[in-house]
């Protein structure tokens, strides 16, 4: 696959270099570790630190979400690989303002181990750490095993509400509670049309026929539930939304946030066509969309396809979702 890169070995370094130059008013790298990035604005003493992180290749996730009202720092891994403990620990130390740090990351074996090791080390240095794992992908394990589900685009809402809570002065336990509640209220499911490729291999991340789609695809190209003939957008949306609503039943009158997230190469036009149908379904059921997000929020390099996320809201989450944010790749008034 064609890429505008130099040496495949240095893509993450070069991306970070460009990113830091482009957004020095938002974010800076720590001298201790070149994969440890923190907000370049001064944060209040006593504010709970919000640390996000994961593999590269998901941009705007995760480095694009460091800023006011969102995360205070990010640990950056190699492409599709959890960051090691060292940058996580350095970010933790830099963003701890005495109130502890919450780690928000996706439920993947690698992240669990690396963030877990970093948390142990941070606690040895006297920093309180809470960890909240994103596990919104309904396609990745049955309902009874939600703890085994992987985190996909729904993590955006976890960052958003937890970031707002920290900004509003919530305690570490409260910020963690908000993050957990948001994750508990969030369900996503994706569909893949075309694979991406790692710069180092150039090989397609999965095999798929010219007329096929992968239902339930993970956002690293992990195979989903099944391959099927590519259908019309409405049919695909129906399937994704049905799977979500079966998992988290919503009653008439309830309010939700909806995210239609592009995986990388799917035009916004198509995302809005998917959103249109999701809105129809929800409206018919008397469920009100309180906030909509349509675009590329957590991607998989140039993968084709999208995911739909629905988060059930209450007044607390609505207030936090409405809270302003100002990050390099996410600004909300």
């Amino acid at each position, binding site marked *: 696959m064609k890429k505008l890169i130099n040496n495949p*070995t240095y893509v993450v370094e070069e991306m970070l270099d460009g990113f830091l130059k482009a957004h020095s008013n938002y974010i800076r790298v720590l001298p201790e570790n070149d994969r440890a990035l923190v907000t370049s604005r001064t944060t209040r003493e006593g504010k709970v630190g919000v640390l996000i992180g994961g593999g590269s290749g998901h941009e705007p996730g995760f480095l694009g979400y460091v800023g006011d009202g969102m995360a205070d720092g990010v640990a950056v*891994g*190699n*492409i*599709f*690989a*959890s*960051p*090691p*403990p*060292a940058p996580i620990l350095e970010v933790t130390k830099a963003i701890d303002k005495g109130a502890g740090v919450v780690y928000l990351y996706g439920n*993947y*074996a*690698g992240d669990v*181990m*690396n963030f877990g*090791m970093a948390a142990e080390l941070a606690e040895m240095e006297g920093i309180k750490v809470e960890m909240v794992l994103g596990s919104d992908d309904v*396609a*990745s*394990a049955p309902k009874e095993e939600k703890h*085994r589900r*992987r985190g996909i685009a729904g993590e955006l809402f976890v960052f958003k509400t937890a970031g707002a809570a920290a900004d509003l002065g919530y305690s570490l336990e409260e910020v963690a509670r908000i993050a957990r509640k948001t994750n508990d209220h969030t369900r996503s499911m994706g569909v893949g049309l075309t694979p991406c490729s*790692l710069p*180092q*291999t150039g*090989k*397609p*991340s*999965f095999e798929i026929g010219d007329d096929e789609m992968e239902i339930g695809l*993970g956002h*690293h*190209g*992990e*195979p989903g539930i099944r391959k099927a003939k590519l259908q019309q957008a409405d049919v695909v949306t129906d399937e994704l939304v049905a799977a979500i609503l079966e998992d988290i039943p919503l009653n008439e009158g309830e309010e939700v946030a909806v995210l239609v997230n592009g995986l990388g190469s799917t035009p916004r036009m198509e995302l809005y066509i998917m959103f249109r149908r999701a809105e129809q379904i929800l409206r018919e059921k008397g469920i009100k969309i309180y906030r909509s997000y349509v675009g590329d929020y957590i991607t998989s390099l140039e993968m084709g396809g999208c995911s739909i996320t629905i988060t059930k809201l209450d007044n607390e989450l609505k207030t936090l979702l409405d809270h302003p944010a100002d990050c390099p790749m996410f600004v909300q008034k």
Partner: protein
Amino acid sequence: MHITTADFIDYFKSVTEMIEKEKDYLCELDRKLGDGDHGVTMSIGWQAVNQKLNNELANESDCGKVSSTIGMTFLNAVGSSVGPLYATGFLRGGKVASQKSELTDRDLEEYWIAFINGVKERGQAKVGDKTMIDTLEPALIVLQANAGGTRNFAEVFSEAVIEAEKGMKSTTNLISKIGRSSRLGERSLGVQDPGATSAYLILAAFLDFIKIKTLA
């Protein structure tokens, strides 16, 4: 058998070479089961290790220091799933080899037992989960059965590698229960686990290495 620190370093260099050769194959397996990066991750990690071997560690005399430095270097270069897993192995092995400028048969036995126990503890996977544990656990059983005994290490280790290979191959017919591929269900059948494969390759490379040592 006596393995000097210089020998030990040579072995790790041979792993780097081997991983470069197997990189595409490991990625290929991971594309089918996971996110396709296992070969790339191993390569990034071992290239970083090789750097250390050629520089900071070039004149190191402490086998323990070599192993634990490799562990931390690998971990910090890759993160990922295998970063903590293999790093913990090398760190535990490093403790066993600490302050030693030569490793005897019994040291090597202990080294690999500690290595495998480290991986197990970190990952908490069980045999049958379709992970590198399916390779490592059978080897561990052989090593432990002979632990502290008098049998020639090369002989024991060669048996351990045979069991490891069987374990690795068994993953082809397993349904994945842990890690990225665990959501595949039936679709994970028919493909050998990438981590089980790289773990086997690391053990097999050590066997090759001591065979050559013994012949030389």
